[in-house]
């Protein structure tokens, strides 16, 4: 569209040679284009500045300033060009062009070295990809952590983390459920508390030297411990791994403990069983071989007595009878010993049936309490459990329990000899545990020295003076337990005194009821 040149002031035309714009239409085209371009060039930096101000995390924000300056300068040249169509301010225009040139050249120069660095900036797509990857990695880490947590929570081994405090003290940090089961100590109760307030003193006293050693030597340590825990008597194998912090000090001890109570018990069972089998064979042979000459001697003594009957003089006969009495008494004594040795092999003599071990234990306690009461020794049945059906001969079990009670009484007497103020208490606990009937006899004596623990079940082993105690009581109890599909063992209670534990195979309760009904 053509504009009417008469409505607008005529642009001041330059002398020929400087400007070739003589066509008014062309002049308007230039004018409008320059003004529009100039205005646009002013608007773009504004948008750029808004963007740069809002996005504070931009890399190289000064590039935006440079671009803004460059564009403003370019816009200014256009506007100046439009202006010079009306006013011949060529010096000003030249100056602006020079500034524009300077800014443009600076921008151009700066841009090339910057280019590799700009190219190195991650693109939004790359960024998104990286974010995705990181999220996936995070999810994997979380899943892995969940797996580890599940693993630790369900691990059969007890795990515990102990913090080593700067003052050399210890603090429980965390434990897994297997730890709680093994030691009967709640993890929540332990967490971040001084160790001596949460772990029983006896247990801690045994464990501390190992912890201190592992912390001092910075070497993994392995050890086996046995102690009375809140969950009962336990034997466990521990591996301690010291964790060193950035300052080179041991910060934590990672412990894993394996419960080997059952394994140890089985090993001890096998050992005891093998020993008792050997002892049984030996005792049976000994009893048989000794009984033959004793038998002949006793029979011939009767013969001699019969021959002496009616002989004269009477003083001689009286003397002879005294001699016969002494010989017979000694032969009977030897015979009794043979009978007791014969009782050791453990195979149940007589018919066996299912009976209630609780009742038998109660009967044994009544008998023993009657005997030991006058000596100031009390026998307390700690609990009144349900019937404990076991198979065997009740008389044999009662005999075995009486031997355990007699042993407890002797232990109490021994302790009293050196410490007259000591307690005269014997306590008996009956319970069902893991398919076994458990009878525990605990005395207030001085306990059984570690080195003697296995030997005390050997026949004729005794710590008493000759003539006191035959050394056949505990072997008999062990033999009876073995004959009833069980075993016996002993340990020392943390509060002192020995605990003899008899474990017998449980018979089905229904068998007990049937037997009882048949009896009634």
């Amino acid at each position, binding site marked *: 569209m053509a504009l009417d040149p008469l409505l607008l002031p005529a642009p001041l035309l330059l002398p020929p040679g400087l400007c070739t714009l003589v066509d008014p239409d062309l002049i308007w085209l230039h004018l409008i284009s320059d003004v529009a371009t100039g205005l646009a060039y002013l608007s773009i930096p504004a948008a750029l500045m808004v963007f740069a101000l809002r996005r504070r995390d931009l890399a190289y924000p000064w590039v935006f300033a440079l671009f803004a300056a460059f564009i403003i300068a370019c816009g200014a040249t256009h506007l100046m060009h439009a202006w010079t169509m009306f006013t011949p301010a060529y010096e000003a225009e030249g100056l602006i062009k020079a500034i524009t040139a300077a800014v443009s050249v600076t921008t151009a120069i700066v841009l090339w070295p910057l280019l590799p660095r700009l190219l190195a900036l991650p693109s939004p797509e790359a960024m998104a990809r990286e974010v995705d990857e990181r999220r996936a990695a995070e999810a994997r880490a979380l899943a892995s952590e969940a797996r580890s947590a599940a693993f630790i929570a369900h691990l059969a081994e007890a795990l515990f983390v102990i913090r080593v405090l700067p003052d050399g003290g210890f603090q429980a940090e965390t434990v897994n459920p297997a730890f709680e089961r093994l030691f009967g100590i709640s993890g929540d109760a332990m967490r971040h508390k001084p160790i001596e307030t949460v772990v029983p003193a006896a247990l801690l006293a045994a464990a501390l030297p190992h912890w201190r050693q592992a912390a001092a030597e910075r070497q993994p340590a392995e050890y086996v411990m046995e102690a009375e825990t809140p969950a009962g008597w336990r034997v466990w194998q521990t591996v301690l791994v010291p964790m060193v912090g950035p300052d080179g000090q041991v910060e934590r001890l990672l412990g894993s403990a394996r419960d080997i109570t059952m394994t140890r018990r089985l090993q001890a069972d096998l050992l005891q069983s093998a020993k008792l089998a050997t002892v049984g064979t030996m005792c049976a042979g000994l009893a048989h071989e000794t009984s033959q000459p004793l038998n002949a001697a006793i029979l011939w003594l009767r013969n001699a007595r019969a021959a002496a009957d009616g002989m004269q003089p009477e003083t001689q006969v009286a003397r002879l009878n005294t001699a016969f009495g002494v010989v017979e008494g000694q032969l009977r004594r030897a015979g009794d010993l043979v009978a007791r040795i*014969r009782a050791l092999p453990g195979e149940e003599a007589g018919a066996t049936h299912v009976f209630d071990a609780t009742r038998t234990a109660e009967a044994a306690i009544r008998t023993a309490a009657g005997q030991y009461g006058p000596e100031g020794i009390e026998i307390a049945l700690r609990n009144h459990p349900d019937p404990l059906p076991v198979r065997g001969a009740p008389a044999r079990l009662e005999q075995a329990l009486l031997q355990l009670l007699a042993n407890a009484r002797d232990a109490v007497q021994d302790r009293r000899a050196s410490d007259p103020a000591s307690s005269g208490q014997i306590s008996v606990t009956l319970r069902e545990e893991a398919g076994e009937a458990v009878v525990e006899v605990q005395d207030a004596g001085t306990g059984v020295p570690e080195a003697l623990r296995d030997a005390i079940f050997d026949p004729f082993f005794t710590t008493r003076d000759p003539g006191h105690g035959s050394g056949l009581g505990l072997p008999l109890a062990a033999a009876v337990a073995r004959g009833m599909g069980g075993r016996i063992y002993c340990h020392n209670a943390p509060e002192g005194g020995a605990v003899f534990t008899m474990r017998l195979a449980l018979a089905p309760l229904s068998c007990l009821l049937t037997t009882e009904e048949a009896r009634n």
Partner: protein
Amino acid sequence: MAWRILVAEDEGLAAMAIEDELLREGYEVVLAPDGQAALEAAAQQPPDLLLTDLRMPRLDGAGLIRALRSSRPALPVVVMTGYAPAGGAGAFARQGEGPVALFAKPLDMDAVLAALRKLLPGP
């Protein structure tokens, strides 16, 4: 007529003393030093009761009881032994129907004689 007791005992001295005791009680006694000899003696002179040891050469007491009771299931038997057999007298329950009394050595002879009187009541 006196009851005849077959005594199987490998310990000669013990057997002699037992023989004395039984004769004094008025029993007729046949002695045998082992199970095999006892079996042969029983074939010659069938006993009314067997008094036997368990551990003997050639044929042991259990074998002897089984052999004698195969023809005479109700033969009363008294066992004297240095071993306490597992199951006690019940261990011989399947070796015939006759009664079995069990005595450990050294023998309480009075108890043995009382058992014999019960198993072989006087005429």
